């Protein structure tokens, strides 16, 4: 079966993020970028399923600027067979991404779509659910285990109360949680091979998708600095402070 995975290019998780001085967003110019860690887990899952003989082809899809090609090359070095970049410099919000991904899915007809549960830059946690809704396909968000059985899949989801086990019909959309797998290190021979794998570049207009933003960012600012703590004399004072100053109880 064919699997489609989505990969997003984000600021490298080890880089300290800085807010732009004009408050319009965070600084990304000349900052080290990397694949969103949850997307890495998605690619890893697809590659493991291919190695297990369940999957025959993995298509990696990204939406964003030209440099997202590097992110797709990383996905291909991990084991994806080919890449598709929907290239745009526009600010693409979750609904726009979901519509673009749906358009690619319509074309590619995969039996399973694996996406990161959220991206570490905007933490929206929306695209996967929206793709599923747009397609009318079952979804399993926050997935920590998946086993495909013919036309269905047994999944384990991480929910507030614990683990939820479901069986979903395929085709379906799955979003990955941290514990689904531990992504591999890319090997040098595979970096070399990835350079030769096919990478298609499309424009949003070619897919007939309107990606105009529906949301407006008013301002981005640094979180307030933490001030020094205080020592309380006893439990009674602590409770009083929580009640009167922090107003949390």
């Amino acid at each position: 079966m064919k699997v489609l995975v989505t990969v997003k290019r984000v600021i490298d998780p080890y880089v300290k993020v800085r807010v732009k001085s004009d408050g319009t967003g965070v600084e990304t110019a000349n900052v080290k970028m990397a694949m969103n860690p949850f997307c890495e887990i998605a690619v890893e899952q697809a590659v493991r399923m291919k190695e297990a003989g369940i999957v025959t082809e993995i298509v990696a899809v990204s939406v964003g600027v030209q440099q997202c090609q590097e992110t797709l090359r990383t996905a291909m070095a991990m084991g994806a067979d080919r890449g598709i970049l929907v290239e745009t410099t526009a600010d693409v919000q979750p609904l726009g991404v979901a519509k673009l991904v749906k358009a690619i899915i319509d074309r590619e007809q995969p039996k399973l779509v694996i996406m990161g549960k959220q991206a570490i830059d905007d933490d929206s946690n929306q695209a996967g659910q929206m793709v599923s809704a747009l397609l009318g396909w079952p979804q399993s968000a926050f997935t920590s285990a998946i086993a495909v059985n013919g036309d269905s899949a047994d999944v384990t989801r991480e929910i507030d109360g614990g683990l939820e086990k479901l069986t979903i019909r395929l085709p379906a959309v799955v979003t990955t949680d941290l514990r689904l797998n531990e992504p591999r290190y890319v090997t040098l021979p595979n970096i070399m091979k990835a350079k030769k794998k096919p990478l298609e570049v499309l424009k949003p207009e070619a897919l007939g998708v309107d990606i105009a933003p529906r949301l407006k960012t008013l301002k981005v600012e640094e979180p307030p600095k933490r001030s020094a703590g205080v020592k309380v004399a006893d439990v009674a004072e602590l409770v009083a402070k929580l009640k009167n100053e922090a107003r949390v109880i």
Partner: protein
Amino acid sequence: MSTYTAPLKDMQFAIAEFSGIEGITALPGCSEVNADLVEAVLAEAGRFAQGVLDPLNRSGDKQGARWHDGSVNAPDGFAEAYRQFTAAGWNGLAASQEYGGQGLPHCLALPLQEMWNSANMAFCLCPMLTTGVQEALTHHGSRELLDLYMPKLVSGEWTGTMNLTEPQAGSDLSAVRTAAAPESGHYRIRGTKIFITWGEHDMAENIVHLVLARLPGAPEGVKGISMFLVPKYLVNADGSRGARNDIRCVSIEHKLGIHGSPTCVLAYGDRAGAIGHLVGEANRGLEYMFTMMNHARLGVGMEGVGIAERAYQHALEYARTRVQGRAIGQRAGDRVTIIHHPDVRRMLMTMRARIEAMRALGYLAAGELDRAKRHPDAEARGRHQARLDLLTPVVKGWCTELAVEVASLGVQIHGGMGFIEETGAAQYLRDARITTIYEGTTGIQANDLIGRKVGAEQGATALALVAAMRELDAALAAVGAPFASMRSELSRAVDALEVATRWLVDHYRAEPEAAAAVAVPYLKLFGTVAGGWLMARAALAAASRREAPGADRAFLDAKLVTARFYLEHLLPEAAALSATVTRGAPSTLALQPEAF
């Protein structure tokens, strides 16, 4: 504790500017090597170094390699890290594609060596030596030996070692006594070798030793030494592993640093004699060893760069977080992190500027190595080889001497906290200390530089390089005022190098003892001035790059400042070193040995 982050931006900058990536793409077999590939490979290698090797550095140092009853266990986690390292294909980066390698150029291999060394020097000595064995076999081994041993050395299933030293034969290898007796189809090796790095361990299924030994009736001295391949386990004709060979690890050394790397005493032939195979022709072993030694010397130079970079990152992290005292001139208000204190900044700038200059010189040499090996034109190959030969002892000697200094500054920035082991700063100093010693001490490098490299050819290559350094003057003049002080410092320093070089050319034959007495100051002078030249080039490149749209101005502006610091703060040492070279020999030798 700090975490290693590969300095990808500076590495890419140095590969582009000093290895000259564009010229390398044009070389045969390098068409795939471009800036994109460099970026992708460096990024992945950096992840590996940070995620797998760096976390084992401290634990490996604390636990150390352990010997019991002839076996050696690498520190916990090393075997698994080695499995991952080889599975990721890093072991075969520069190896021939014929044997499963990727055949990538040294301008990529050397920066990766820097990363492995930054992350975990003790660990990466093992793959480095394996690469050295591949190199020696490729140049001198028979087709039969190559086919049998290379695939597994390239994949890393087997590791390699160099066996030169014996208790009485250290820097002077003419004293080697290990004997090789011919038998049908092979040789029997008997003798004791010491200081064998990764000579015994549990990370790979076989170990391939290259051993220097004497054949019966071989001439005395270095002309009677042959090279033998002696595997820990014999290898069957089909490539499978056979019986255990007669080699025993008698003990491992207790050392100042690189505790994670076992330094072995190997006893060959306690029983029937270890079975070995002659590599190349008889009595040419030392010459063969030097093919890989020269390459290994560049590698040790990169160990210096790597360990210095790691010490810098560690000290920087501490300087950014340690709060101590108020800023100079402030009597009230908040206390500040120590990075606000000018002397701490001086130390950080010194570390940073030295490292960037060392990296520039190392990567320049890597580019020369690629051109010397691959350039289609024989005359050009010769020119690049001469440049490489000249630079090799400088990269080895200068970068490692500075690594010790930089790691020592790293301890200094930590203050008392650096002297205790808990902060981890001391390990880098302890680990750095071996780099000026093995693969030829700094003294040996300096003798090589003044003798085979400068003296033997009347300074031709060295003076050609001096002339190349002078060519930069016009470019610096063209930029004008902002570069005026850099220009005058560089010009003075290049003069100092030329004066010292000419002094050596004049005195090398007539007064060899005097020349040898100032060889190390000359090596340091050479490195210091070459570093200044390259930092000035870096400054010019940064000044022009920063005008491009989307330029990384924060990085390029920092490069400009660092270059200026190097030229104004460190390069003036050249004048003193030059004076030492031309005037320092008599007082070095005036006191006779018995007067000490």
